[in-house]
């Protein structure tokens, strides 16, 4: 799998496109092809995920918010987001406690990008959704329960 992926990247059109873009200064290859945090995405429990993200004992913070509805009609598509009012927020992540793998996504925010990212996630069942935020070398967290009337992992 990994070998195959590398081959495609080396020789396929994907690499050519990325290479061209990098050459044109459109993207910094180091960031575009940053290593996907396999350990964090494959961790199952919240605790293991936080550990893989290097976020031991994040502090609860009122300056962090999980945005999203109280109830989702369908777990396949649940609009959620993270906002942080903590100055110097450089990373936000969305974690779903009851999903098979807790981590849904993480976002690195370069200077100038607001700590306000919205996306849509799959939820297998009603669960607490966590926003994890990094500012400086500290982690902060907030949570919101989102009820799901129909789970989104069975298809």
């Amino acid at each position, binding site marked *: 799998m990994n070998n*195959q*992926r*590398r*081959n*495609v*990247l080396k020789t*396929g059109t*994907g*690499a050519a*496109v*990325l290479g061209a*873009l990098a050459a*044109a*200064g*459109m*993207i*910094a290859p180091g*960031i*575009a*092809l*940053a290593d*996907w*945090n396999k350990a964090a*995405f494959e961790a199952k429990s919240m605790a293991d995920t936080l550990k893989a993200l290097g976020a031991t004992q994040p502090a609860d913070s009122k300056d962090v918010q999980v945005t999203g509805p109280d109830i989702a009609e369908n777990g*396949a*598509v*649940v*609009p959620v*987001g993270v906002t942080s009012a903590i100055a110097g927020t450089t990373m936000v992540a969305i974690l*779903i406690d009851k*999903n*098979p*793998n807790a*981590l*849904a*996504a*993480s*976002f*690195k*925010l*370069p200077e*100038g*990008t*607001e700590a*306000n*990212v*919205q*996306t*849509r*996630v*799959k*939820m297998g069942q009603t669960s607490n959704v966590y926003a994890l935020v990094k500012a400086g070398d500290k982690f902060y967290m907030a949570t919101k329960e989102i009820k799901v009337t129909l789970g*989104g*992992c*069975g*298809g």
Partner: protein
Amino acid sequence: MATKPMRIRASTKDGVTEVKALIAHEMETGQRKDANGAVIPAWFITELTASHNGKVVLASEFGTAISKNPYLAFKFKGGAAGDKVAITWKDNKGETRTDEAAIG
């Protein structure tokens, strides 16, 4: 497998640019089974980067819990009408795609 174009919308107001993107992708979890009971292999975007005039404004990592045809909205300071916002994604099969849009 040909990739499909994204829909990127970017607009600027009071010095802040808001980007909204829809990305065509299956985002298969690897947890579903087909009609014959065989597991459908995971197929999902792992990394997505957005840039404004060549400068990275968002670097994301996705897991399988991001919905099919992902949606993303975020804001960054700066940006003027006509500037280019580009989004590049890469999936776990090594496919990548880049699309760009002008700030409206």
